């Protein structure tokens, strides 16, 4: 207190929102557990892409022993390491000592040579030397099913991790303020809506930063390992994922905050946020199980909770028309606005009610 105290420059509600957001971010960034787990997440993502990249690029060459007569037979085969031997005996010796996986030796068959192996013949050699019929596929698969599966897991897991980590953070922060009663002091300075907005914005910034860091790492990883093809087909879906995630997370964060405001103790967070946790888990499970089911993916790509996973997936496999993400985004933004309105109402009504868990109907009534 001092006599010549200047009247405080009554800051606007906007600056109070930023103050709250700033506090949310700085207290999270100070948590060692958070920094370590984020570091590990980024490392795993990088390692996954690098390992995947290197193994797919350098499949091990198949070692083959040939004699002078059969050398020309394997010449045309890709990715084969040829060792020339004098005769069958020498070839068998190399096979038994496992220095070569197969030997192509002169034989009596119609082809004039025999593939000899120790236990089983390498399919690349047998396949390469076999005569295949001409095959014509009317609807060629646009993507490798394995790649499709991994991409599905990738989008699913990133959504699940980021949404549950930061949704959980917002729920904890709401209950912490209730449990320690600091909320009474805060509400004597700013409105409940300002407080809620600050929390949602702060955690959204953190979640988006994590997503963007992952996207950057994925891009760098793909470039380093020379997987430019994957990168070019994944680029647009990743950008759409980020955009959908932004609104999807704001939607979820409002619901997490509202659910958390209905309880007064940390122990009750789990039960109160259970329905929302289910909503967060659903897209992850669905996209893994149904990543080759066009109908399920189409539905997922329009339902607001799963659109952040479903739509980028459909874009990646090339099943979505250009206008589809725009329509889905409009639906998502509209649901987001509705969730904020309902969430803010519950939050305002519940924040100062201590003690037992409130029922949803009580929280919605003023």
């Amino acid at each position, binding site marked *: 207190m001092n006599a010549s105290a200047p009247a*405080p420059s009554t*800051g606007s509600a906007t600056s109070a929102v930023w103050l709250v957001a700033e506090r949310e971010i700085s207290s999270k960034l100070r948590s060692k557990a958070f920094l370590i787990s984020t570091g590990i997440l980024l490392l795993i993502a990088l390692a996954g892409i690098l390992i995947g990249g290197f193994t797919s690029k350098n499949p091990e060459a198949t070692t083959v022993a040939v004699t002078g007569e059969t050398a020309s037979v394997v010449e045309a085969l890709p990715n084969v390491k040829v060792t020339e031997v004098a005769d069958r005996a020498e070839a068998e010796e190399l096979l038994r000592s496992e220095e070569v996986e197969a030997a192509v030796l002169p034989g009596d068959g119609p082809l004039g040579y025999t593939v000899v192996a120790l236990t089983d013949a390498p399919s690349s050699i047998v396949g390469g030397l076999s005569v295949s019929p001409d095959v014509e596929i009317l609807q060629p698969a646009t993507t490798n099913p394995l790649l499709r599966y991994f991409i599905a897991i990738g989008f699913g897991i990133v959504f699940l991790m980021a949404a549950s980590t930061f949704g959980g953070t917002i729920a904890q922060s709401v209950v912490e303020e209730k449990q320690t009663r*600091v909320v*009474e*002091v805060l509400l004597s300075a700013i409105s409940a809506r300002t407080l809620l907005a600050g929390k949602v914005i702060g955690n959204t910034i953190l979640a988006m930063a994590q997503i963007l860091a992952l996207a950057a790492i994925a891009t760098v990883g793909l470039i380093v390992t020379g997987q430019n093809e994957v990168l070019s087909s994944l680029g647009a879906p990743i950008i759409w994922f980020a955009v959908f995630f932004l609104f999807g997370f704001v939607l979820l964060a409002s619901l997490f905050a509202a659910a958390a405001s209905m309880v007064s103790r940390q122990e009750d967070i789990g039960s109160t946020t259970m329905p929302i946790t289910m909503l967060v888990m659903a897209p992850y499970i669905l996209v893994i199980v149904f990543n080759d089911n066009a109908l399920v993916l189409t539905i997922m790509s329009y339902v607001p909770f799963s659109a952040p996973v479903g739509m980028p997936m459909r874009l990646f496999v090339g099943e979505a028309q250009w206008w589809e993400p725009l329509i889905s985004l409009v639906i998502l933004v509209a649901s987001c606005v509705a969730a904020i309105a309902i969430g803010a109402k519950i939050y305002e009504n519940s924040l100062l009610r201590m003690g037992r868990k409130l029922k949803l109907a009580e929280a919605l009534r003023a």
Partner: protein
Amino acid sequence: MTTGQLELSGITKSYGDRRVLDDVSFEVAPGRLTGFVGGNGAGKTTTMRIVLGLLSADGGSVALDGAAVSAEDRRRFGYMPEERGLYPKMKVQEQIVYLARLHGFGKADAEARATALLTELGLGERLNDTIESLSLGNQQRAQIAASLVHDPEVLILDEPFSGLDPLAVDVVAGVLQSAASQGAAILFSSHQLDVVERLCDDLVILADGTIRAAGSRDALRAQHASDRYELISAGDAGWLRTEPGVTVLDFEGGYALFDADGPETAQRVLRAAVDRGDVASFTPAHPSLAQIFKEVIQ
């Protein structure tokens, strides 16, 4: 600092069928400390929450300088809730700076204020410790800093002295008195009636949701003063028992405590006592706040 008088008029509040506040009206004047006393569950905390806009009243109004209190006015209110609460893992100074900024102060200004106030409250060496690492008494001081850091016009303190040792009570009392001397209107509740008695200028007594007494402390005292006197004289005071209009409550040798049936009787007794020997002391016995409190809440 612009000063304003806080006026509550006709506040009512019910929880379901239970009426917790009934036509509560009183004033908190700028530059004065108003003590707010009442038993547990009398409705003090509810009243304070209504003043702060944390709860809405069913009826009645809260006005500052004659105009209904707005959200903007409330940013110039300071509040210390009964259930203490600050962020446990946040550093003391950071926490107070944050609250000052929420109340609209710029960063540098907020930091200077927080540091000065915390130092005044004896937390100068704990600025960078987390709240949870402080003793309860020190957490309490930090809480007081939280309510004062933005130089509030109106200060609402729910039990600011509970849990403080006598030295800390003096420190906090000093800070509150200096806030009042700067012109703040201060309302504080307490169960420690001796502290309230020593500190407050005005008094509001609440019981069962209704105001039982309100006004300046001295006026209340005078209003509840009885014709009770204490006499200490050289001789034996036994003669008092036969004086007409006198009821002796306690007596031992030269000491007597008695009720007189009027000021004239008291004067007559004093003259008689002087006639009988030296009088060391003859004083009207003021009722203590505890006595007034018991009397009005019955």
